[in-house]
């Protein structure tokens, strides 16, 4: 997906985020960027580095550890016509912002009869591995999907990271822009000029005929690897990236399921009351669904995220578990099968080292 052709530029996810921010800040003076340590020497893993030098401390600034009030600041500034981007280095911290996001940002346009708009972008990052533990690893997108008025996007690659961030900044609604730490080093073709990736339009990343795999955020990458492993035993999986979860392009998933006859949703989060539950429910209740379809889902183990390596491995879905699950769904009468563990490791995950 977006493999650079000859002469095309390849860019890392983290650099795509930075480029999108720069291009939008140059285009629109009302855009500003703030959050704890967006202006420090590490610059949110590099995604905001150098931006304060470029745009000045009025448009790029660090904040006190006051996530609740800073979210209110973003909302108030947005009501006054600005377009803030508020950055959190872990999604877990967004729990401190829930009152402002759910009670105000999501509802202001509605309960004030359309008199105000809240064009804010909440950038936040899901952590994983190297012992991140229970409070540096949560993926809470389903909490925000639950609330009318919020948009939720989770780009899985550098191309979409840039296009979605530009779309989110230009959107007149509050957007939860959810990044994955382990995707930061992944590269693909990213055009130099500004462009948008539209919310509410899923993408078929790889086509197949036996089953539909829906991956969320980094699980797109893991599904693609699982697809490769499955092809070795003759199973053809289609992989879909919803890109945005609110709005959700359920028709794209439905059309695929109607072709393949099976659906496995793989989320980088817990399954109960989660995005995977919502996708399965919407497919199940659709009058356009053809015939009986086998549907399953995978996600985190139903526990807090443990830091100990073997526990962490048991906690997360991975390409091997995904491939084994697909095999059991597509060939339920066959002996259980799982791929060679050596082949299941993803290079960008292997690269990742602590501490953060």
């Amino acid at each position: 997906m977006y493999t650079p052709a000859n002469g095309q530029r390849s860019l890392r996810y983290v650099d795509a985020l930075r480029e999108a921010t720069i291009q939008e800040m140059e285009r629109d003076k009302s855009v500003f960027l703030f959050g704890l340590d967006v202006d420090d020497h590490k610059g949110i893993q590099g995604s905001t580095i150098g931006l304060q030098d470029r745009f000045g401390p009025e448009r790029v600034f660090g904040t006190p550890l006051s996530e609740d009030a800073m979210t209110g600041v973003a909302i108030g500034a947005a009501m006054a016509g600005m377009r803030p981007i508020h950055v959190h280095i872990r999604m877990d911290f967004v729990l401190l912002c829930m009152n402002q996001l759910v009670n105000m940002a999501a509802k202001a346009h509605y309960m004030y009869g359309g008199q105000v708009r809240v064009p804010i972008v909440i950038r936040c990052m899901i952590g994983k591995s190297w012992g991140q533990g229970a409070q540096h690893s949560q993926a809470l997108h389903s909490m925000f999907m639950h609330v009318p008025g919020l948009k939720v996007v989770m780009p899985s690659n550098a191309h979409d990271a840039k296009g979605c961030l530009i779309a989110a900044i230009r959107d007149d609604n509050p957007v939860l822009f959810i990044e994955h730490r382990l995707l930061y080093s992944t590269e693909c073709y990213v055009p130099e000029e500004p462009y948008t990736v539209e919310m509410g339009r899923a993408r078929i990343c790889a086509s197949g005929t036996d089953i539909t795999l829906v991956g969320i955020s980094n699980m797109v990458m893991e599904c693609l690897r699982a697809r490769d492993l499955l092809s070795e035993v003759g199973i053809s999986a289609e992989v879909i990236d919803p890109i945005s979860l609110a709005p959700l392009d359920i028709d794209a998933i439905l059309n695929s399921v109607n072709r393949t006859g099976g659906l496995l949703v793989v989320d980088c989060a817990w399954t109960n009351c989660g995005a995977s539950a919502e996708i399965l429910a919407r497919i199940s209740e659709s009058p356009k669904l053809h015939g009986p379809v086998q549907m399953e889902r995978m996600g985190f183990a139903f526990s807090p995220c443990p830091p100990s390596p073997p526990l962490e491995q048991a906690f997360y879905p991975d390409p091997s578990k995904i491939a084994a699950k697909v095999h059991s769904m597509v060939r339920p009468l066959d002996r259980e099968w799982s791929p060679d563990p050596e082949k299941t490791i993803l290079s960008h995950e292997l690269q990742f080292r602590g501490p953060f």
Partner: protein
Amino acid sequence: MSEQLDLRFLYRKLRQIRRVEEEIARIYPSDKIKSPVHLSIGQESVSVGVCSALRDDDVVAATYRGHAAYIAKGGSLSRMFAELYGKVTGCGTGKGGSMHLVGMDKYILGSSAVVGTTIPISIGYALALKREGSGRVVASFFGDGATEEGVFYESLNFAALHRLPILFVCENNAYAIHSPLKKRWASTQLCERVRTYGIPAISIADSDVLEIRQWASEAIAGLRRSETGPAFLECHTYRWREHVGPNEDYQSGYRSIAELQNWKEKDQVEAIGVRLLPSERAEIDAEIDAEIAAAVDFAESSPFPGPEEVLTHVYAS
């Protein structure tokens, strides 16, 4: 403005708020207003004192007990009553209700039903005004209960750090729903707490509208010059009616009628009213009653939103 004209102006605003609230209380038993009302009766002078020190293009943020601030800043009475009636002509098109009045044409930010929530939103607006650099300011109203929320201190700190043009106005009516201050505050020294952030803070004991306006005017003049950071006013005041609803609740035992009597003696509608000629006062009263009657008529005769409206304005487009 001559002193007499000024008093007429203040009396008109005070009386307007009082009479609107009384009219809501009168209509309420008819069940035409299906919205939880938190009446401002007794607390009018805080909003009137502060808003009379503001320019038209300044901004206010208020709370669920926000009718007074909405009216004091010039919000439309017709659109307010229509909102209480749930009509499509309401300021929130029937989607806000009493606790979420809004009037962006008069720079009245929408109010919130969750205590403390509009405080950081008002500092965000103030941040935008500071960047704009045209001397506009924000007045942010909240109650004594809001000062117990963590976001209050987060907001004070950020506003002081960035020297934002905002006047914090604490309407201290001494009760959070039914809980008195002595059950909630380890110390009553609110202004001292605020001053530790480098924010000048004044406490006004008797809700005197002229005193409130004087302090507000001085603070706002400083904010406009951008020489200082934010300022803070604590205005002691008193809610005459129950926390929510149209009635009195002195029989319930959490507060005394003697307390009410003490505050009624300081009633600012009366204090300013007696300084007008009886004929002047009668003329203003009649105008206000006519205005309110017209606003109620507007609400009564306006249509409800159609059911399809439930799904509009969920997202801005």
